[in-house]
């Protein structure tokens, strides 16, 4: 037994360990306060009146009858917005309320809001408001916005963004050419914790405090304050407990309405959406149509990729331009390809507004390129793993945007590690019916079931792009030995609160780390999105803790006649390197006060030029998925048996959390592959409920086998890459490819519906 090279295991609760969530006990006991649990004395309820039409001119609004209902305290419309009448993340093009004389542009657009003493009173008041509409023919097909045949439905026009990428030699061709037209349906983020907020007005209406479930407090505050006509420092936001986000909380929904009602009534107001309203109240994943043509040499090596992508942005801009850029800049996937011609459009229609959702445009692009890779493999007579390995990107490769991939890029390793995960056993002769397609419906006939195996591999950018400085801020205080962290990072379930404590324990050598309230009383943290908080807010917390530690070292050194540059943390002690001084941190910090705030900025990025060239992204992460499915070819039902995955994570900071992110992301990608779709017909959502919008249940969740590929990312402050988005990206085409293999069907669209398989 070798005892000389033993490495001590990390101290419990530090980086690399399964630390416990600080909010865990409250969450399992039911005491954790989500934004929908917020309550205040003398509180009123708010509710929102929404348009029943996708496109219509408002002729008049009559609130007379609603005002006669006992218990109604306020009714507000566009005329009651004191500040900016519109908001938006990129363009301020979305009205707080649609105005008389102007148009509503999607079904569900807010027209008025009420405050009353009971939710039922609110419902009755909304029903009593008379709105006269002149119904207009809606723009539903985004292609009509490109060819100009659609009427212009917004002063800013119907094109939200148009961008080309031309890379290398656009005229080159390959010996082998495959093409396809692919379609991705509209997915909902389907967080469990519905939109809810509580607004508390300041006396005299000079300001407001808002408890809100959001992904980015400071961005919300900026937009809310502008609409309220208040200075930002008069609008204080506090993070209400967030019941999941997945992109659906990046945009303003009920924030401004809740504040307006509270200021109008001088009473606390809570708005809480129901599930149906939530489907209208937040943006969704863009439905997209993507044509792709791949050129390769006879061995299967990529020569050129061509694509045309059309994203339906719906009625308002939200983040559509950024989603589109993410999609087109990821056209090549995790593969080396020098030549490309890509054209992307994000368009305005009278369909539901679309914006951020986990994967942010890359999901759509990946479904197309991974479908193409299987076609290319078949055309070249190479197996799907071989074709992906042959083209796997490496660090130093040049993207079609001209950007050099300077992140670690273990694409081939992800593929090999995934391939090494054992396949599940063949179906038993007498299987449990719950394991079969159709599950508890008990509809499957063993003899109609075919098994398929499919692959998907992806690349995902981390952090915001195109010149955006989405910095993060953290404050570390040491007060008489007690360490307190303060940041505005939205904890949406991902576990940043746990990671922040792990960082502080590691850097400062303490076990107890207090967390201050997450609010706007500290600098911005940027958004909990784009797989960015571990890197960005992790970097900020790390920097603040290091600064605080260095200050503490100076004080301890002065007290003890030591050189501060020779002090270090060893476990929970401060020690002098090469010396004899050793003292527990908690003891050494007694009676001392340190207070350090730091910002972390990622390396700057730049805009794309007219040919789509530019260093627009910060960093990249990679992942491979292999899906095994059983398909009932008579009934068109699919059971995902196993998903094997190897993910490039840089460094695992919390193993249990990483597994949780991977398993959760895979379930969401499975949803898009076979069941989750917002069905929109004539501009109306046909299935705004959990009865009709199907989410993966416990019985749908496959066995997941995970390998983490740990190659320390030197650009990242903690060596780690964001883990959140990659799991949901290439699992969708992996499942689609598996169904294709089982059925021999083309299946150009996800979700794959039963009728796509068996009719």
């Amino acid at each position, binding site marked *: 037994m070798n005892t000389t090279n033993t490495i001590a295991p990390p101290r419990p609760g530090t980086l690399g360990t399964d630390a416990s969530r600080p909010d865990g006990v409250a969450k399992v*006991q039911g005491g954790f306060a989500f934004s*929908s649990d917020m309550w205040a004395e003398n509180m009123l309820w708010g509710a929102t009146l929404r348009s029943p039409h996708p496109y219509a001119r408002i002729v008049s609004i009559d609130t007379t009858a609603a005002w006669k209902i006992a218990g109604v305290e306020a009714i507000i419309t566009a005329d009651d917005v004191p500040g900016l009448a519109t908001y938006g993340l990129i363009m301020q093009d979305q009205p707080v309320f649609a105005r008389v004389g102007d148009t509503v542009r999607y079904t569900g657009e807010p027209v008025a809001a009420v405050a009353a003493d*009971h*939710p039922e009173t609110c419902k009755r008041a909304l029903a009593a408001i008379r709105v006269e509409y002149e119904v207009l023919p809606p723009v539903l097909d985004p292609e009509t916005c490109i060819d100009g045949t659609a009427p212009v439905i917004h002063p800013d026009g119907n094109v939200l963004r148009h961008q080309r990428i031309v890379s290398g030699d656009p005229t080159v061709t390959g010996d082998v050419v495959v093409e396809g037209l692919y379609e991705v349906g509209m997915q909902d983020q389907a967080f*469990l914790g519905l939109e809810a907020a509580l607004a508390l007005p300041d006396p005299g209406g000079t300001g407001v405090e808002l408890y809100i479930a959001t992904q980015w407090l400071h961005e919300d505050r900026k937009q809310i304050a502008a609409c309220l006509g208040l200075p930002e420092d008069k609008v204080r936001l506090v993070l209400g407990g967030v019941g999941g986000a997945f992109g659906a909380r990046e945009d303003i929904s009920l924030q401004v309405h809740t504040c307006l009602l509270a200021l109008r009534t001088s009473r606390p107001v809570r708005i809480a959406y129901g599930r149906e309203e939530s489907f209208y109240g937040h943006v969704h994943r863009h439905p997209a149509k993507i044509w792709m043509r791949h050129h390769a040499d006879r061995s299967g090596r990529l020569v050129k990729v061509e694509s045309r992508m059309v994203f339906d942005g719906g009625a308002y801009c939200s983040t559509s331009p950024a989603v589109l850029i993410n999609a087109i800049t990821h056209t090549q996937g995790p593969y080396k390809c020098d030549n490309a011609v890509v054209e992307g459009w994000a368009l305005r229609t009278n369909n539901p507004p679309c914006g951020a959702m986990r994967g942010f445009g890359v999901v759509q692009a990946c479904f197309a390129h991974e479908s193409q890779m299987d076609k290319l493999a078949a055309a070249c007579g190479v197996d799907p793993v071989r074709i992906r390995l042959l083209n796997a990107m490496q660090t130093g490769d040049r993207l079609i945007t001209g950007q050099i991939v300077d992140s670690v890029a273990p694409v081939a390793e992800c593929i090999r590690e995934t391939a090494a995960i054992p396949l599940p056993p063949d179906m038993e002769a007498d299987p449990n019916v*719950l394991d079969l397609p159709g599950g508890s419906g008990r509809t499957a006939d063993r003899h109609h079931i075919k098994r398929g195996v499919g692959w998907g591999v992806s690349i995902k950018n981390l952090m915001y792009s195109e010149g955006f400085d989405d910095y993060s801020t953290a404050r570390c205080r040491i007060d008489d030995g007690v360490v307190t962290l303060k940041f505005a990072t939205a904890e949406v379930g991902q576990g940043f609160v746990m990671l922040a404590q792990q960082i502080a324990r590691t850097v400062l050598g303490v076990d107890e780390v207090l967390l201050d309230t997450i609010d706007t009383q500290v600098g911005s943290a940027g958004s909990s999105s784009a797989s960015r908080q571990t890197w960005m807010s992790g970097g900020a917390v790390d920097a603040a803790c290091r600064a605080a530690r260095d200050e503490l070292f100076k004080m301890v050194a002065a007290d003890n006649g030591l050189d501060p540059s020779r002090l270090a943390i060893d476990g929970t002690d401060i020690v002098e390197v090469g010396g004899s001084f050793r003292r527990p941190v908690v003891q050494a910090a007694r009676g001392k006060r340190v207070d350090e705030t730091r910002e972390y900025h990622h390396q700057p990025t730049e805009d794309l030029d007219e040919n789509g060239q530019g260093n627009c992204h910060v960093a990249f992460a990679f992942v491979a998925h292999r899906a095994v499915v059983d398909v009932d070819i008579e009934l068109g039902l699919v059971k995902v048996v196993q998903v094997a995955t190897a993910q490039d994570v840089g460094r695992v900071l919390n193993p249990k959390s990483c597994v949780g992110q991977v398993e*959760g992301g895979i379930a969401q990608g499975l949803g898009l592959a076979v069941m989750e779709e917002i069905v929109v017909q004539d501009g109306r959502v046909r299935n705004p409920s*959990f009865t009709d919008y199907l989410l993966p*249940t416990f019985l749908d*969740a496959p066995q997941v086998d995970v390998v983490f590929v740990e190659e320390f990312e030197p650009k990242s402050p903690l060596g780690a890459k964001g883990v959140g988005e990659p799991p949901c990206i290439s699992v969708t085409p992996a499942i689609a490819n598996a169904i294709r293999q089982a059925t021999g069907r083309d299946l150009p669209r996800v979700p794959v519906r039963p009728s796509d398989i068996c009719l």
Partner: protein
Amino acid sequence: MSTPSGIGSENYSLTVNGRSHDVKDSWIGESLLYVLRERLGLPGAKGACEQGECGSCTVVVDGRAVCSCLVLAASVVDTSIVTVEGLGDGGRLSDVQQAFLDCGGVQCGFCTPGFIVAVHHLLESVPDPDDHQIREALSGNICSCTGYGRILEAVQQVAVARRSK
């Protein structure tokens, strides 16, 4: 909670977690979920679908696990209601609650109270469930964050621990 003007004034009492609670001046249409959360100060049960599809509002009424969003509060007087707040022992975590934490079964936590109640109920009726029984029994509880893997492990862990007792 203020009295709603003009939409009723029902008075009744409910027995929740062994304690009797008076409900005063209420609207007859209020669900059990609403009354627990907004009148009795028990926000553990969560509303996420209002259709009995997601299980976030699961409570136990006279030994049966129900979606409290589908139950009229006034229809369960004279029953015994158990919510997530009634589990555990005087602030100490139950074995199920502890296992959810140990196994990483909690992320955003919105579905968690409903799951905790449903798992307790499952293990009381089926003390030694296999994976199929666990999956089927919990298929009425939706989780958007975890993909269920860590929750499955938590339930397995409790079942094993209880078996060895």
